[in-house]
């Protein structure tokens, strides 16, 4: 039995691997809470709404250690809050609060409101921590209120009022953005919002005040259930009122401004034909997906698509478009190939690095390689070697030195030896070229199969 490296905080149970399958052991001490979740109708409602991960109760050798063992349904791509776009974080926040409100109707409440308890399946936010419910005691405040604010409200408020890129703070602060830090980042006009004032400023003041108050060991606090529901509903309204500011970004209008319709049409057709040639595909990763146009095309040929981009506005656009078109198997994420998400947390093992999580059947790399090689000095060798370990097939676009974009990039890097012959020579060390199509005078598309190492 291998314990999951992130499974040490919860006294209710733990996650472990058995024959490469993930299981959750439920401790005897959590028996009453688990039974209430399952018998009160709460679990059934959440499953019906598709708000919680499904699980099956199973019997394993380790049974004597636990009250019960459950096997949660696997999530196609594990993602973390710092990789979500603004709207994903907002939807995850709203889902957490909606689940809390429904739980209260069943005399339960969430004792844990961490962003890591939510995972996305396409655009559906799912609660994955089945053991984060506990029996609600009339009169008690919400134990996870501060955690919720630090994990969701503060990063959403900061990014909404200042800059989307600050969502990356969640990768530095694994337990959520500290309140004092968040307040120092918020502009004065944030105070004009009653919700921000109450749930952030007043909340932070109260924490500071009562941390110093050593004599007040015992406080008498009583909040009726209806008041608690009002508090959580107000928090929900506050989150709902936060939006992205309309700012321009380098890549946001790429498909509108920068590409030619005719060329894109030919490319779309070729990508589809190449995907058909790959046979049965479970997972595809579209790296440098922009607003996900090709990810949505790829979604018809596989079970799951990971659609990553370095521009948070593009990721947000991608997410909203998928919701609009009800494309349920594309997961847009913020991903910087030059500086991918590291492994973080205790012993650097609690949250996995980007490359430890990504293993797919097909990688799509369209109009990206010239940026990596010319602008960022990543060699063909470095790219081919890394990609070959993570996929069976590669669909890659190459723009030659006569291409307008390449010429522009080469203006500042004239010494760089960027040529299709170098590209082919290097990639053929790791891949077999199955198909080579000329898209126009300067660009070509390749289907490559990874060589068995």
């Amino acid at each position, binding site marked *: 039995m291998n314990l999951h490296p992130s499974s040490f905080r919860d006294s209710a149970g733990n996650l472990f691997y058995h024959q490469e399958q993930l299981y959750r052991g439920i401790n005897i001490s959590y028996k009453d809470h688990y039974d209430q979740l399952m018998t009160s109708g709460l679990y059934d409602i959440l499953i019906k709404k598709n708000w919680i991960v499904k699980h099956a109760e199973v019997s394993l050798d380790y049974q004597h250690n636990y009250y019960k063992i459950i096997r949660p349904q696997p999530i196609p791509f594990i993602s973390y809050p710092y990789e979500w776009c603004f709207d994903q974080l907002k939807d995850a926040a709203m889902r957490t609060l909606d689940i809390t409100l429904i739980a209260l109707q069943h005399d339960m409440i969430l004792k844990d409101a961490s962003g890591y308890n939510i995972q996305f399946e396409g655009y559906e936010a799912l609660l994955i921590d089945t053991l984060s419910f506990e029996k609600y005691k009339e*009169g008690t405040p919400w134990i996870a209120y501060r955690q919720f604010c630090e994990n969701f409200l503060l990063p959403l408020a900061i990014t909404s009022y200042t800059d989307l890129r600050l969502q990356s703070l969640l990768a530095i602060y694994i337990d959520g953005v500290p309140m004092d830090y968040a307040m120092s980042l918020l502009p004065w006009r944030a105070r004009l919002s009653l919700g921000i004032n109450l749930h952030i400023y007043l909340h932070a003041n109260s924490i500071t005040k009562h*941390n110093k108050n050593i004599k*007040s060991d*015992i*406080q*008498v*606090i*009583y909040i009726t259930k209806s*008041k608690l529901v009002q508090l959580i509903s*107000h928090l929900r309204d506050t989150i709902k009122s936060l939006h992205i500011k309309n700012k321009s970004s380098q890549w946001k209008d790429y498909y509108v401004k920068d590409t030619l319709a005719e060329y894109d049409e030919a490319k779309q057709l070729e990508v589809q034909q190449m995907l058909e040639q790959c046979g049965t595909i479970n997972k595809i990763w579209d790296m440098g997906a922009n607003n996900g146009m090709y990810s949505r095309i790829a979604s018809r040929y596989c079970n799951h698509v990971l659609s990553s981009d370095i521009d948070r506005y593009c990721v947000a656009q991608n997410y909203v478009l998928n919701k609009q078109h009800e494309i349920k198997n594309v997961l847009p994420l913020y991903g910087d190939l030059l500086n991918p998400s590291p492994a973080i947390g205790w012993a650097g093992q609690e949250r996995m690095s980007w490359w430890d999580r990504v293993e797919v059947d097909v990688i799509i790399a369209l109009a990206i390689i010239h940026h990596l090689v010319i602008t960022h000095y990543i060699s063909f060798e470095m790219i081919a070697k890394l990609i070959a370990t993570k996929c069976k097939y590669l669909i890659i676009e190459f723009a030659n030195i006569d291409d307008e974009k390449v010429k522009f990039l080469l203006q500042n890097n004239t010494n760089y030896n960027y040529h299709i012959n170098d590209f082919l020579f290097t990639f053929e060390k790791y891949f077999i070229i199955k198909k080579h199509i000329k898209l126009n005078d300067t660009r070509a598309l390749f289907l490559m199969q990874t060589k068995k190492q």
Partner: protein
Amino acid sequence: MKLSILLYLDPGTGSYIIQAIIAGVIGIAFFFKNLRIKILSFFGMLKYDDDKEKNDQSKTENKL
């Protein structure tokens, strides 16, 4: 009925206390919100929540 909770020098102390205070403030806000809804619906000027959700979503889409 009052419920006593042991609160030591725990980072949650202030967070628990403030919930009671905020709940009180919100209670007043909810009272006026409900009053507003009642008055608006009396004059037939109330919009449905569904429309409001849709408007909010299109606001985000337009901004993108």
